């Protein structure tokens, strides 16, 4: 249980998807112009991450890993294709389910869902999970059981949402500031994210 919480907190602050690994930057920069849409995309990412990562964890440990399906066969070279297929499939499924049962949620999340299939944070989460499954179980980053994969999914999703909401809040204020012409828009956003990332680095000493 202790490991569950430490993994959860670490993946929000220390191993933050945006600030430590730059994952999901494309939609991060494109959809952070105002807080409301940023929040919508953030929630959608948490949602999809929470479903795909545990599914991919089961896939990795029950099918792809060494000696899982057939004795002496390691299928992990197939992981890229299977992971992306799972992600694309689940995103499609989630989109249909949400549309059917909650039209109001669909109206607010709808446009973001297809974007998420190609969001690096989702694919990156699954690939990091694959790396961490092989780690020594005593390590603070290891994912040793199904519960850990849920903690990691939830933590990395919340970390991503935290990052995009923070940036959106700053960008709303930036609208009114006097920025040099060529730096306006994307340029200053990059530098802002750099400074935010520097601030987040102070969490890296966090011992959990």
């Amino acid at each position, binding site marked *: 249980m202790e490991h569950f919480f430490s993994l959860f907190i670490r993946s929000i602050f220390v191993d933050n998807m945006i600030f430590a690994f730059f994952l999901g930057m494309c939609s991060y920069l494109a959809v952070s112009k105002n807080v409301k849409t940023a929040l919508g995309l953030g929630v959608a990412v948490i949602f999809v991450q929470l479903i795909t990562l545990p599914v991919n964890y089961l896939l990795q440990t029950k099918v792809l890993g060494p000696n899982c399906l057939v004795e002496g066969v390691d299928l992990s070279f197939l992981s*890229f294709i299977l992971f992306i*297929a799972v992600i694309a499939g689940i995103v499609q499924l989630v989109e249909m389910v949400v549309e059917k049962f909650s039209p109001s949620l669909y109206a607010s999340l709808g446009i973001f869902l297809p974007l998420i299939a190609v969001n690096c944070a989702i694919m990156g989460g699954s690939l990091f999970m694959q790396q961490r499954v092989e780690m020594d179980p005593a390590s603070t980053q290891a994912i040793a059981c199904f519960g850990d994969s849920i903690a990691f999914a939830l933590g990395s999703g919340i970390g991503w949402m935290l990052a995009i909401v923070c940036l959106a809040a700053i960008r709303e204020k930036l609208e009114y500031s006097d920025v040099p012409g060529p730096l306006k828009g994307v340029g200053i956003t990059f530098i802002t994210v750099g400074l935010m990332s520097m601030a987040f680095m102070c969490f890296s000493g966090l011992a959990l």
Partner: protein
Amino acid sequence: MANKNKEIFGQPVWVNNPVVVQILGICSALAVTAQLKPAIVMGLSVTVIVALANVVVSLLRKTIPNRIRIIVQLVVVAALVTIVSEVLKAFAYDVSVQLSVYIGLIITNCILMGRLEAFAMQNGPKESLLDGIGNGLGYAAILIIVAFVRELLGSGTLFGFQVIPQWCYEHGYLNNGMMLMSPMALILVGCIIWVHRAQFKDLQEK
């Protein structure tokens, strides 16, 4: 026709660069640039994958049903990335360890999906090949610029060889460790965008 092909190939390298103009494929552009060697390997891998994926999708473009085109494109890209990743593991193992998950993340690199959607679905295989190589090289160019600055200032080396002479260190010169950390990559890309937009004024945002 020859002129048009030249434009398809040449535009993305600097004028219409996928990273600094279209802001695509940032994730891996930032993460692998602490040193020159992995940056060059990454740039070349992406170039090869964009070029081949563009050709394959452009050949298939009339047979792909519109509704499932994203999944078809993803599968084509994932297959190519798997091949590249296996080749790297076989011939350049230490670099492939350094690149870790970022090779797998080429699948979700927005440059790929962007080029496949915007170009390969409408154009023939020959133009698509040129477009793919051009965009891949444009991406590689930014990676190399960022990695050059970061490795030079961050560890005083290029390709792992020391370039800043020893007497500088003896007189109190210090490597800037900050350069090796992730925030500086973002700030450097911000600066490249600044230079680029100062040169092409029509890209500036109001």
